[in-house]
């Protein structure tokens, strides 16, 4: 055996000798710091939309930015998604953020754009990560199917929000000062999309959990 083989062996990637624990994809202890930031984020709506103090809005923005950074790292470095998938994510993200930031009055109301812009980015990025991981676990190799999974995950993640919004618009029939009839007409499409999203979420999740458990049991 010559030294070049041993050198080559020393240079082999770290994953090769044994499977590594999921903590290398997870944040380790840092995920609990992120979890702590959830609380001020949940309390923010109670402060009211007149809140303009950036120090109050900062924890929510930090939560969103850190999560977004984490998911981008996963997508680009760890999962190494393809160019087409990344372009698709950028298109979704760009449209959503553009729609938000160009809505009249949003930019002049820090309460909206400071927390919302990062959190809506997290929505798309998290859905992309989940879609790509599910594709890997379900052994789906076709790129169009990857894109479909990402899209379904976007809907699945939003499904509880769609149902909450449908509920609020239903309440508007009893409290008209919440919203008018034209807005209230959206409650059924939102409820339908929410139910569909929930159904898809559970169906894909079940299949993926099964595939994940099979992958762990049969190395």
């Amino acid at each position, binding site marked *: 055996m010559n030294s070049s083989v041993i050198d080559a062996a020393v240079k082999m990637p770290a994953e090769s000798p044994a499977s590594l624990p999921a903590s290398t994809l997870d944040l380790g202890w840092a995920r609990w710091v992120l979890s702590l930031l959830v609380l001020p984020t*949940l309390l923010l709506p109670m402060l009211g939309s007149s809140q303009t103090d950036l120090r109050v809005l900062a924890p929510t923005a930090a939560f969103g930015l850190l999560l977004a950074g984490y998911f981008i790292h996963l997508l680009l470095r760890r999962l190494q998604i393809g160019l087409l998938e990344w372009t698709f994510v950028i298109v979704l993200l760009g449209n959503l953020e553009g729609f938000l930031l160009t809505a009249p009055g949003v930019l*002049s109301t820090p309460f909206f754009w400071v927390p919302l812009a990062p959190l809506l980015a997290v929505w798309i990025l998290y859905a992309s990560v989940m879609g790509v991981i599910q594709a890997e676990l379900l052994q789906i190799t076709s790129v169009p199917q990857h894109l479909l999974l990402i899209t379904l995950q976007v809907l699945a993640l939003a499904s509880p929000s769609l149902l909450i919004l449908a509920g609020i618009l239903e309440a508007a029939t009893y409290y008209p000062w919440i919203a008018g009839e034209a807005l209230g007409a959206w409650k059924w499409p939102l409820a339908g999309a929410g139910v569909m999203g929930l159904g898809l979420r559970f169906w894909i999740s079940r299949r993926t*959990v099964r595939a994940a458990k099979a992958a762990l049991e049969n190395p």
Partner: protein
Amino acid sequence: MGADSTVARQAKDNRKDSIISLINPNMTSTTFDPVASKRRQLAQWYLRDKHRALWQLPLWIAIATGIALALLQSRIESPRRNLKKSTAALLALAPARVPDDKNAAVHYRRAFAGYVRFAKGAPNLDADLPGHPLTPHMKTQLQKYLASNGKALLNLKAGAGKEACDWKLNYTAGFGMLLPHLASMRQGARLMALEARWLASEGDHEEAAKTILAMYRMGRHLDRDPTLISGLVAVAIDALADSALQDIVRYHLPANQAELSAYRKALWTNRHPNQRWAHYINGEKTFGLHAIDTVFSIPGTGRAFLGATLPRPQGMYEIWYGEDRMCYETYMDDLIARGKKGHITETDFEETILKHQRGPAPLTRMIAPVLSRSLNNFIRSEDQARVTAVGMDVAAFRMKYGKLPTTLKMLIPEFFSELPKDHLGRPLRMLVDKNTDEDSKKKKPRFIRIYGVGENGIDNGGYNSKAPAPHPNAPDADDPVFVLPLIPETISTPGKN
């Protein structure tokens, strides 16, 4: 060649196996699969998801808010497009132009330029005289004051004699349109009221009646422009004329029927309060829509229009612009429809705005409350006209028959065909005043009061807290009233005063 590459590959695998076996004797290169390894890694990550469930909670709220904003944006109207429509509607409100030779405003402006104020130290007759007798000292001051304003009075009467009045206002300025003539018209009406009083005290009732008539015509000239403030100033001028009539009948009663009849004819009755109010409120609606569209068409004007300290961040107004505008428009239409039929109370306003409100509607809630109360001014003016008319009929009855009627029924059918009512259908009343009057401490009946129950609907015995002598026990009294002395205080005849 092929056999050589197979041999080389086999040699490479053997070398790998030897190296790997040094590290882990149980493993060889054939047992390691990087794809499977990665899949296991992902599976472990996927299954460890409790903390990610927690992270989703704020995501749901954020997504719901984002979708709500998207839905609102889908409803958003274009302020610029609406501004074109509202500007056209505003210009359509402007009354037709009147040539200068027929335009009353030309004479009025000359009068405004010729006003002479009260001399320093002289009594303010505008405030001191109405509701009070004309003392000799006041009469001297009044004579001087009217002489110095002679030219202004001539121009005011010339203007009142014209049919049409065009102030040539700049409607394109919208809410910024200036109305400098209103204060001057009101000052002119005060001057005319003083002149009517002077003429009546001198026994020239015919001219005094013409002056009163001219005051009502001045009010009509303000009716052409459909702004609420013009309407309210017109109502104020009508009130000055009503008050002048009251003072003349109380302090300078004509000696004959013809002269009293001249005043009765000069009195403007049937003031159509609901229709006039609806005309002004329709104008206000057009101005209001134009103002809302202007504010949101030009970035940054929201703060300038609404003030430096906004009750909400400006963005909230921009987000809800479409809903707020629609709320304002439908609310105003509803208010006009209700106002045309009858009276509007505070509760009506609140119910009406809740019916139309969609979302916060901050601008509507700022502009709307003042408008609903304005109808009361017009109704009060109409009620005052009615009690003044009945009061003058009672004075005419006394002049004809030498005695006062004991009830209003005695005036039917000669003076009116049925018992008179106020604008809301409540009967007018007549009362001999047994209370202490303002000039005497003895409880002696001095006056007869013809009155209505007013806005509060309570019979306050013909007292009004805004009158020169309000009832001490009824500070909230708001009865429209005409006071007639039981014994005429002064009957002015030509040449005797």
